[in-house]
């Protein structure tokens, strides 16, 4: 059953998950930014992600580019269907991306680039969540093209997923800060993490109940025998992980809260994959129907096999160079 199409679906899932976690925590920094009121705190938070955000965002390009290369049909249906949220997401990413460089250049007290950073991060996150929700709901297809209107993405469900993702990224961001800072800022981050963890767990619960109701096929996977057996460990693990997370927050652990949050994201992501697999444009097109010819898949697979390990090595190296708690004076260029 292992086909090259399946391998590509796994690669793509890996890229998207890497993106969610990596850009998730630096978008999260932008979301919790309003809670950091002191200028030094803001500088610290910014510096904790400044050297790596660009690399994190590259996974988004790989997600899009990988979809284009391996499943061009899906790319050409999903992107028009999500036209408005994706465009808004791009605008958000522009606002926050340039803020990293611009905020050091503007000397006025009320730094408008701080505002741009917050606004951009929130827009980008909300839109990613909305896009995800709209995708789970399903996309109208006729022949080889998107057949819905340009408002189809908007629904109570998609908006709810959008706000859920905001709480999730905020949690990633605040637990990242716990790891990277000390003193008052760390205490603040712990307080924020507790809040956002509560909200996020609540959101996970609602989305998990709501999703199966959207589509009978999802329902069968989650609530019928024997499928249930495969799906059941996911909610159980979510439960265990959240207990560990709160315990680690209480004990003021440095790294554990972040790792537990990542694990929560992984479980939610697996839940999402269980729902949609083997579709790549739910509910009608599966990964085999959307895939490029074998020759294209093979050619780029060679590239992935060669480059991906190297990328992981030098990316880890960069994280290692900037490891440990951030200090302010390290960051002048």
């Amino acid at each position, binding site marked *: 059953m292992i086909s090259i199409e399946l391998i590509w679906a796994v690669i793509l899932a890996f890229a998207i998950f890497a993106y969610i976690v990596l850009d998730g925590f630096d978008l999260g920094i932008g979301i919790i930014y309003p809670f950091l009121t002191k200028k030094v705190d803001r500088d610290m938070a910014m510096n904790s992600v400044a050297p790596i955000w660009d690399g994190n965002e590259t996974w988004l390009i790989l997600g899009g580019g990988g979809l284009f*290369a391996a499943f061009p049909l899906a790319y050409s249906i999903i992107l028009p269907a999500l036209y408005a949220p994706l465009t808004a997401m791009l605008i958000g990413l*522009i606002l926050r991306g340039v803020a990293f460089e*611009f905020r050091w250049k503007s000397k006025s007290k009320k730094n408008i680039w701080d505002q741009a950073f917050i606004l951009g991060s929130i827009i980008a996150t909300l839109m990613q969540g909305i896009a995800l929700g709209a995708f789970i709901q399903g996309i109208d297809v006729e022949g080889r093209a998107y057949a819905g209107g340009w408002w189809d993405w908007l629904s109570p469900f998609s908006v709810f997923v959008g706000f859920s993702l905001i709480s999730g990224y905020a949690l990633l961001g605040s637990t990242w800060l716990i790891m990277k800072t000390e003193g008052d800022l760390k205490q603040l981050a712990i307080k924020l993490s507790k809040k956002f963890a509560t909200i996020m767990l609540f959101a996970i619960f609602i989305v998990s109940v709501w999703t199966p109701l959207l589509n009978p096929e999802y329902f069968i996977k989650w609530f019928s025998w024997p499928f249930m057996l495969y799906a059941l460990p996911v909610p159980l693990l979510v439960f265990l992980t959240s207990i560990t997370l709160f315990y680690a927050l209480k004990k003021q652990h440095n790294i554990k809260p972040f790792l537990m949050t990542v694990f929560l994201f992984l479980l939610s992501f697996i839940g999402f994959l269980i729902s949609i697999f083997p579709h790549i444009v739910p509910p009608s097109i599966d990964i085999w129907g959307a895939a490029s010819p074998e020759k294209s898949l093979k050619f780029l697979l060679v590239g992935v096999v060669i480059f991906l390990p190297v990328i992981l090595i030098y990316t880890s190296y960069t994280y290692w*160079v900037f490891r440990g708690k951030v200090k302010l004076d390290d960051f002048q260029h």
Partner: protein
Amino acid sequence: MIDAIDLARFQFAFVVSFHIIFPAFTIGLAFYLAVLEGLWLWKKEQRYLDLFKYWLKIFAVAFAMGVVSGIVMSYQFGTNWSVFSDKTGPVLGPLMGYEILSAFFLEAGFLGIMLFGLNKVGKKLHFFATLMVAFGTFFSAFWILSVNSWMHTPTGFDINATGQFIPLDWFEIIFNPSFPYRLIHMLMAAYLTTAFVVVSVGAFHLLKTNTSNTNSKTMISMGLWMIACIAPLQLIAGDFHGLNTLEYQPAKVAAMEGHYESKKGAPLILFGIPNDEEGRIDYEVSIPKLGSLILTHSLDGEIRGLNEWPRDERPPAEIIFWSFRLMVGIGLLMIAIGFASLWMRVKGILYSCRWYCRVLMFSGPIGFVAVIAGWVTTEVGRQPYTVYGLLKTVDSVAPIDALAVGLSLITFIITYFIIFGSGVFYIFKQFQIDPDQNEKFNNVLAERGGISYIVNALGRVKKTF
């Protein structure tokens, strides 16, 4: 009523033209930085380190803008050209995939160390990071130009039952006929563009302070060597590029040259006003026979005119006739500036000749103008096709409402002007700082904004007269 396709075309042209401004600068600047750091490690002279730090700040801002505008590009194909994406995905997708894997990750992965790591990783490793970023920009240009060239001169593919292009021979696809020319021409364009910016900033400070400004002089000298060597080569590369185009896209060349009627021994049209409606050039000023000589390398060679193609298969000469002349005109100006610098070096007046310094200062942006003019020539000349001869632009577009595209277009225009306007403003602010005083200014940025760079410059012109 404007329809969705025109809006989508305009949006693509707008975002890609904005995007290319930054790569045109960062491709060259990344290599300039690598050279500076290499020289510093090798010769241990302070001025190279000063300059490295000076330009690194500018690079950081320009690179950030290149990245965010580039992310927009990678989604344009799907959101606005979905039919195109479905059809060309199997061929172009993997090439862009290689770009991401070999170039974008490399740049992004080492950028952090390049910008913030000088005190953290040691000099040699830091130099390595700078080199990696520079190579990243090169690989990026390599792959994306291969993609673009394949759309101009598609080879090595077949078409399947659903109308998709499918790959037959990857080597033929990547090294398609127009690719080597386009790659060389674009890389040299990026180096020239950067060199002119560097020289312009140097000349500005030399004029302003009027002392023995070693760092400014180093910038001017390095940049002018680059210009003197590369500008003439660019003319030669452009000529070869044009001959290649004549072979594969003769209609484009006819439009560039302004030939409507086929002719043996065609003239070189210097000026005139193309009239697509009537199919002729009004107010033509031309040199007899030279056109044939340049394109066919014989006085009586035949050149096919636009009127040989049906009307709906012709590119609009009214645009590319002019964009082509703009690019070539700037190219010739660059050659002149390059030669002048050699002559002034011999005379020993390179830094003391004030009018020449002024010319240098004002020619800072001409590279960008030429780059955009060149791309407009290439891309508009490919019309009405996206994949030349095979897939029409009208058949490539996504099924999106005109209203939606119109709204996104307006949003892009507003954000781009605010964001990139601010970015350019900050870059100009940085230019205000004297490269010889960079360390002093490290934290205190010049109070006056970037506008004063221009105001100062204009003030200096007034003094001349």
